[in-house]
């Protein structure tokens, strides 16, 4: 049981490190680029901005969750 927990923890730590690298790249490549466009949208078309905001956060949730889950599964398979 203890051995199993230690293994899960190790896999999780590796997952966290890889995920952090992905997310850092995402900050600078995607979010930074979106900044100005979203700012203009918020100033000029509030309703459209509201819709885009919900779509962005929902889309990111689904995609990042899928990435994190697959990454975790993959690492567990490799570690076994």
């Amino acid at each position: 049981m203890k051995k199993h927990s230690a293994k899960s923890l190790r896999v999780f730590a590796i997952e966290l490190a890889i995920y952090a690298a992905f997310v850092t790249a995402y900050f600078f490549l995607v979010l930074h680029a979106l900044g100005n466009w979203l700012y203009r949208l918020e100033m000029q078309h509030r309703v459209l901005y509201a819709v885009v905001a919900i779509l962005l956060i929902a889309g990111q949730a689904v995609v990042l969750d899928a990435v994190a889950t697959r990454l975790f599964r993959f690492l567990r398979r490799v570690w076994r």
Partner: protein
Amino acid sequence: MFFPISHSDINPFYLAVVGFLIGILVGFFGVGGSFIAGPALRLMGVDWNYAVGTDLAHIVGKSIVAARQHRTLGNVDLKLGMIMALGTIAGAEGGAQLIQVLKRAGNVNTVVSWVAIVVYMSISVFMLWESQKTLRLQKGRSHKTAESKQDHSAFGPVTKKIQRMKIWPMISLPTSGIEKISLWTILLVALIGGFFSGFLGGGAGYIRMPSMVYVLGIPTHLAVGTDLFEIVISASYGTFTHAIKGNVDILIALVMHTGAVIGAQIGAVATQYFAGPKIRLAFVPLPLIGVAIVVYTLLTGHKF
């Protein structure tokens, strides 16, 4: 990193770490963690109206992930969630309108801070009292093993009385094990939760989750999952209405959410290892952390 919409300069890694910690709370307690997220944004100098709206947007993403996890674990009562979403949306609009009034009056930061302090402290004190009483009651019982993970509440007799109130229409919630309850009771609980969601930000799970357990009598595990499911709908509406009013910085929400994804996975799995009263007892110090941050921002001029 500069966030032009809310005119704030915040380290994105700070936001991701805050998101990660809140993600754990979401998965484990079923609450959005706005009692931490809102104050954490205030700590960085973000105005309350932006903290409230942005936290709502952030919560949409977190709740989608966590609700899916809970649905897989069988912790969601869909019928209850859909009914509650209606009441919450109405309440959230009321809360958002009040924020607008305060914004125009120029005292949104002070008023929301004080309301947050009172609400968060009340929740902690109540949950401490209730969960300790319940755990003492459980210890006194002779039945052990089989019942050890069953959900009990010291508020049980009051819950039963509320369930017996016959205000038409009465509905049944088979998934939650409730034979009959007034539709209006559910809507009222949702309306109050929705109001706090629109006013203090987040999904207001800190109000709704305890209300679902103590007032409606929903088992804690189901209350956690159903609350998350309902938050997806109501927080989306809250985000929309706050964004139209110019209170949402979606970039901050997106950055915070990147950390929440991993945190939510850990939290959801952890609920399987604890019984209801223990989950509630562990919840007690969390709103107090939010109180400490709000008091700090009030004393020091709202900036870390």
